[in-house]
C-alpha cells in the first residue's frame, strides 16, 4: 500500500479497519517522501531544471518591476538597435526592448503550459478513471475515441481544432490541451486497471463504500504520481507546441510578446538583425529544457523501485 492510500485511509472511518497499523504506515509514508526528496536533491540535472523553472516563475512575476521598458509600446527611434548596455538583447523592428518582451513572454509561456496541461490532465484523467474503473462500454467507447485521436499525429489534431475554433492564444491552449488528452487517459486507465484489483479497494467495496468514495479516496490519490510526472514533461511539450503554433501565425497575435510570435517576426531580419530571432528561441529552448530535466528527475525520484 503506498503513501497516499495510507494517509487517506486513516482519515476515513470506513477504512480505519482496513489499515493494519496506521502509525507504522504513516512513518513509512514519511520515509518514502524523504527518499523522493533525497533522490531529487541528488540529481544535479534535475536541480538545474528546478532552478530554470524557478527563475522563469520569478521572471514572470517581477517582469514589470525589473524592466524599465514597455513590452508593446513602439519607440520608432530605437528600431533595430543591436545588443547594448541599455538593451542587452537589442530592439526589434518597432523599437521594443527584446529582453523586456522575453520577460513578459515568460508569463504567457507559463500560462500556456499550465492551462494546456490542466485541460489535458483533468479531461484525460477523468476519461481514464471512468474507462478503467467502470470498464465495459464506457471503456470501449472511450478507447475508440482515444484511438481516433491518436490517428492524428503530433500537432495535426491541434491544427484541426484551431481550424474549428479560429486563431488565438486561448484557442491554442485549448487545442494543445485537447491534443494531449490521449496520453493522460491511457496512463490513468492503466493505473486504475491495476489499482482496482488491490486489496484495500476490495475491502472498501466490501464495507459498502460507493463508486465515488472508492474513486476519490482510494484510487485517484494512488494513481496521481505518474500523472504528475507526465504533467511536468507535458508543460515542456505544450510550451513548445504553442510557440510553434504562434510561430505559424495561428496563436498569439501582434503585439503580444509571445516567444513563438517574436521569432516569426525576426525571420524577416535574419541577414542583419540576428538578435530578433535568436534570443526568443534561446528562451523557449531553456524553458523547455528546464521542464524536461525536472520532469525526468521527478520520474526517477518517484520510481517505485527502492521506495518500498
Amino acid at each position, binding site marked *: 500500500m503506498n503513501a497516499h492510500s495510507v494517509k487517506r485511509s486513516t482519515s476515513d472511518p470506513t477504512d480505519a479497519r482496513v489499515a493494519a497499523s496506521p502509525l507504522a504506515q504513516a512513518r513509512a509514508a514519511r520515509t518514502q517522501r524523504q527518499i523522493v526528496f533525497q533522490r531529487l536533491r541528488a540529481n544535479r540535472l534535475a536541480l538545474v531544471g528546478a532552478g530554470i523553472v524557478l527563475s522563469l516563475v520569478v521572471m514572470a512575476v517581477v517582469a514589470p518591476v525589473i524592466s524599465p521598458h514597455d513590452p508593446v509600446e513602439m519607440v520608432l527611434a530605437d528600431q533595430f538597435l543591436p545588443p547594448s548596455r541599455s538593451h542587452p538583447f537589442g530592439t526589434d523592428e518597432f523599437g521594443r526592448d527584446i529582453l523586456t518582451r522575453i520577460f513578459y513572454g515568460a508569463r504567457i509561456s507559463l500560462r500556456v503550459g499550465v492551462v494546456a496541461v490542466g485541460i489535458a490532465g483533468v479531461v484525460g484523467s477523468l476519461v481514464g478513471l471512468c474507462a478503467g474503473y467502470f470498464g465495459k462500454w464506457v471503456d470501449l467507447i472511450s478507447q475508440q475515441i482515444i484511438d481516433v485521436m491518436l490517428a492524428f499525429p503530433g500537432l495535426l489534431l491541434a*491544427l484541426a481544432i484551431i481550424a*474549428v475554433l479560429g486563431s488565438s492564444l486561448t484557442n491554442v491552449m485549448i487545442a494543445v490541451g485537447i491534443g494531449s488528452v490521449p496520453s493522460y487517459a491511457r496512463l490513468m486507465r492503466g493505473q486504475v486497471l491495476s489499482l482496482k484489483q488491490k486489496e484495500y479497494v476490495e475491502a472498501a467495496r466490501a464495507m459498502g463504500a460507493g463508486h465515488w468514495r472508492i474513486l476519490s479516496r482510494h484510487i485517484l490519490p494512488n494513481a496521481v504520481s505518474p500523472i504528475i510526472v507526465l504533467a511536468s514533461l507535458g508543460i515542456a511539450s505544450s510550451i513548445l507546441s504553442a510557440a510553434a503554433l504562434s510561430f505559424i501565425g495561428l496563436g498569439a497575435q501582434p503585439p503580444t510578446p509571445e516567444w513563438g510570435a517574436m521569432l516569426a517576426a525576426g525571420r524577416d531580419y535574419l541577414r542583419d538583425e540576428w538578435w530578433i530571432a535568436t534570443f526568443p*528561441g534561446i528562451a523557449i529552448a531553456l524553458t523547455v529544457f528546464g521542464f524536461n530535466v525536472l520532469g525526468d528527475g521527478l520520474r526517477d525520484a518517484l520510481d517505485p523501485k527502492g521506495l518500498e
Partner: protein
Amino acid sequence: MVRYIIYRLVAAVPVVIGVTLAVFFMVRLVPGDPIDIMFANQAPPTPEQRAAMRRQMGLDLPIHRQYLKFVADAARGDLGRSFRTQRPVMQEIKTRLPNTLKLTAASLVVAVLIGVSAGVAAATFRGTWIDNASVAVAILGVSIPGFWLGLMAIMLFAVKLGWFPVSGAGTWRHLVLPAFTLGLLSSAILARLTRASMLDALAGDYVRTARAKGLREFWVVMRHALRNALIPVITMLGLQIGGLLSGAFIIESVFGYSGVGLLAVGALQTRDFPLIQGIVLLVALIYVGVNLLVDIIYAVVDPRISYS
C-alpha cells in the same frame, strides 16, 4: 501470421471510420453557415447562388446522407474544391505531397543515421565523454524548437555562408536544410532509445558468448547486440514518422518549402475548410496506414511476438 495481419486490418477499420467522422464533423462544428464562410472574403452570395451552392455541396441532405456522400466522394478521390483557388483539393494536395514525402523520408534517414549511431556509441562507450556528450545532445535535441533551429540554420548556412538556398523546393539543395533540421530533432529521441536498448542487449548472455568465442568487439556490437537492440527502435520509427509528418507542417513554413504542410498553414490562415479537411483526412489516413505497416513488419521481423 495471416490471422494476425487480418486482425490488425480489422482493428484499423473503426479507427478509419472514426477519422472520417471526426473530419466530417470538423467543418460542421465551425460556427456559422458553411456558405457564409465560403464567401467570407467575397461579396455576399445571392439567394440563388446560395441555393445552388447548398445543392452542390450536399448541404440540403440529412446529416447521415451528407456523411455517406462525403465518404463515397473521398473514396473516389473527390475532396471538394478549395474555397480560395477553386481547384480540386485532391489536385492541390497531389502537386505538393511528393515534396512532403521526400522531406519526411530524407529526415527519417537523417534521424536514423544520427540517432542510431549516437545511441550505439553512447552505449558502447558507456560512462565516457562520448556517452555524456550524446546524452546531453539528446536532452537538448528534445528541448530546442525545430522552427528556431531552422531559422538559425538559414542564418548560418544560407544567409552567411550561401551554401544552400534560403527557401523554396525542387532540388536536392532545397531539401538539405529542412531535412537536417527535422531529422536532428527526431534523432534525439532515437538516440536515447537506442542507447537504452543497446545497454540491455550488451548485457545479454549471447553477447558474452560472442565475446568468449573471441569475436572482435566491433562484430559483437554490430552483429549481435545491435540487431537485437534495433527491434524497439523499429517500433519507435512508426511513431516518429507521424512526428516527422506533422513536424513537416512547421518546418515547411520556416523554409518556404512547397509541401502539404505549407499548403495546410496557408489554408488555416485563410480558413479554406475543404482544403484543411482534405489535408487532415489524408495525413491521418497515411499515418494509420504507416502504423499498420510497421506493426505487421514488426511481427514478421520479431518471431517472439504472439499473433493471438
